[in-house]
């Protein structure tokens, strides 16, 4: 009897624990997204916000520069306290950070990820909070709508932007007898340059990333350049299209006919960039902001870095855009969101409106070894951007004269949005396609695209 009753007791305990667990979980179902309208915000109330991307102590100059700007902001807005954190965006930690309530109030997120966050409703709707912002009225329309949700609400503010382009090593071009100031402008010319580099230098002519969704990311970019998108306007999959087949055929020719793509075809972002910065690779398709990663981060000679507009086929649609978007914690209070928007305006946009702020920022960037004047898509209007360039002309430490073709055409190449919804999953479905073409000489491109079409369609169906 006692044993039975102890079993009953244990059963009751488990039931009680499960009930408690369920009660604990049901509290999750409460929607704790702030509902208060922006008009009800008390902007005079003391508020504390946290921000991401404080440089670590390894980079003390940049860290000090950012903290100095936090001090300046707090002096200007005494009711707002800013806590700078070293948190940076990573896909691995973001969900846990959000679940644990540890997401900074303001966080910088890459373009490639922001669409997924918006789809999952994991960033705050800031539409009402920036409606009256004078600064943000000057945003470049070409990038301004990159953080809108399906209903047209604003879920983030672009703070940097770049197009995908053809990145090339100017020193290797010279060694191969090519003119680094006249980079390839068609895919045939890219192929010829790759062969020349392969034949006349120790480096490999061309490379492409293939793992961690980067293969799909670049293939999507190439498909745009060859003239088609991967998702139709009606939301159906369009992977099995002529443009993507042409892009894969380009890879196939370089790999198997020209032998100009090296021997390793399992490359992620780090692998490809390390090889390029080390002078082992002539060209690859990557973001124009790669200057920072290759030169500032990996120590490549600034004069060796070249960037050209992404070559466009006769019916090319444009190029994929990248960059960063400042987003706000979805659990932030209306006062915190208002303060967050004020910080974003101050930190990211003040330099375009105030000469002193521009010069101070450029001065500290140069002192910290950062790049000033990088090849990019302007995030503000053309007038504001040109004016800023004039203000900081003495501090520009990027050899912009090397990017003449890119800079003179960056406004002309249309920026095409990433496939949505579930862009990252679509990229993941395309990685194996790129790998197949590069690792198997008998890979059947039509069949690979047919299979990928079905996979991507199931991804799109699941996202509905």
């Amino acid at each position: 009897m006692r044993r039975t009753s102890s079993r009953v007791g244990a059963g009751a305990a488990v039931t009680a624990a499960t009930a408690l667990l369920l009660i604990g979980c049901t509290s999750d179902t409460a929607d704790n997204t702030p509902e208060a309208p922006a008009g009800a915000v008390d902007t005079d109330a003391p508020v504390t916000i946290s921000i991401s991307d404080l440089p670590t102590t390894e980079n003390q100059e940049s860290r000090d520069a950012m903290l100095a700007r936090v001090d300046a902001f707090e002096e200007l807005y005494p009711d707002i306290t800013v806590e700078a954190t070293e948190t940076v965006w990573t896909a691995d930690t973001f969900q846990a950070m959000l679940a644990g309530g540890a997401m900074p109030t303001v966080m910088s997120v890459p373009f490639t990820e922001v669409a997924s966050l918006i789809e999952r409703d994991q960033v705050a709707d800031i539409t009402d909070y920036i409606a009256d912002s004078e600064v943000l009225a000057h945003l470049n329309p070409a990038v301004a709508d990159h953080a809108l949700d399906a209903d047209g609400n604003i879920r983030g503010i672009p703070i940097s932007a770049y197009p995908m382009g053809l990145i090339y090593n100017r020193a290797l071009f010279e060694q191969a007898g090519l003119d680094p100031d006249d980079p390839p402008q068609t895919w045939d010319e890219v192929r010829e340059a790759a062969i020349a580099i392969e034949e006349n230098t120790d480096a490999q002519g061309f490379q492409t990333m293939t793992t961690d969704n980067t293969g799909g990311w670049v293939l999507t970019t190439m498909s745009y350049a060859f003239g088609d998108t991967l998702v139709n306007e009606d939301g159906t999959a369009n992977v099995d299209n002529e443009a993507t087949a042409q892009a894969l055929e380009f890879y196939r020719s370089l790999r198997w006919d020209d032998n100009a793509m090296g021997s390793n075809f399992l490359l992620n972002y780090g692998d490809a960039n390390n090889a390029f910065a080390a002078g082992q690779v002539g060209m690859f398709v990557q973001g124009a902001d790669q200057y920072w990663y290759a030169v500032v981060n990996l120590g490549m000679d600034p004069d060796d870095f070249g960037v050209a507009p992404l070559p466009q086929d006769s019916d090319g649609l444009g190029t994929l855009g990248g960059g960063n978007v400042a987003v706000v914690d979805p659990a932030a209070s209306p006062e915190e969101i208002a303060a967050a928007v004020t910080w974003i305006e101050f930190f990211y946009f003040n330099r375009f409106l105030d000469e002193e702020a521009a010069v101070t920022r450029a001065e500290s960037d140069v002192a910290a070894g950062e790049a000033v004047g990088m090849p990019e898509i302007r995030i503000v209007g053309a007038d504001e951007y040109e004016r800023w360039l004039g203000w900081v002309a003495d501090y520009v430490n990027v050899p912009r004269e090397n990017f003449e073709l890119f800079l003179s055409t960056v406004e002309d190449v249309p920026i095409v949005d990433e496939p949505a919804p579930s862009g990252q999953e679509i990229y993941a479905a395309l990685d194996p396609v790129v790998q197949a073409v590069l690792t198997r000489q008998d890979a059947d491109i039509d069949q690979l695209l047919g299979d990928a079409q079905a996979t991507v369609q199931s991804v799109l169906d699941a996202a509905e």
Partner: protein
Amino acid sequence: MALARSTDTGTVASAPATRRRMTPAVWARRGGLSTLAFGLPMVLVFALFSWWPILRSVVMSLQQTNFIVTEWVGVENFARVMADPLLGRAAWNTVQFTLWSVAIGFPTPILLAVFIAELRRTRAFASVLAYLPVIVPPVVAVLLWKNFYQPGDSGLFNTVLGWFGAGPLAWLNNGDLAIPSIIVEATWAGFGTATVIYLATLMTIRTELYEAAEIDGASILSRFWHITLPQMRGTLLIMFLLQVIGVFQLFTEPYIMTGGGPENRTVTVLMLIYRYAFVSGDYGRATALSLCLAAALAVLSAVYLWATRRWSQS
């Protein structure tokens, strides 16, 4: 079984009588409080970091959550996992990893332990050497091996093959070679621990058995087969099970070395779970597949223990 267990010891038989007289005061006087004080921290740590996450996973597998809003979706996450065309590929890859691991990784430390046990003066030194790879941090080891497997002429293994006029091989870039290549690395990184455990077991085998066998004229091979292996069976059974469970949860090596490529040939079930959680942000599906994996391992372990019960008891 039940009869055997109840008559195992007299203390068990007399337990109900003792329990009847037990009051809180008696329990406390007999050291119950100190037992509780000693046990409680461990129970709390386990509860917080093991049992709670497991329970939470069960709950989350029935939900769809963005960590802001959560809704109950029943078994929909399980249905979506089962409908994923990549699941079959990942499961088959995982089985292949396991088979290769059993073929390469299981016998290696046994043979090495037997060899080291035969050494007299240099046994300790050999043990240290065998254990050395375990000390190398896993990510460092994996990155080293990734370099060794470079598919060009300059890769370490291809250079060695070149000396013999062979190769170069594509190694990780080749769908057929990628899994065995990864298993060789995993074996190198993990055999030290298993070797030390087997060595400890070998040291407990009474030397009289070998002496008697030698007098009877048994060869080295038959001594190994008829004495060493049977004497090690308990350890072997557990180590085999642990190895299979470990390989079923393989993640770091394929994640770093191949990212699941080429053509998803090295995607494991755990990598799929990782993709669900961190690429798609779909924790419901990730926890659903985690539970399926846990269930599969539980069934596999039960079947294994049932199938080997006679050997483990004899």
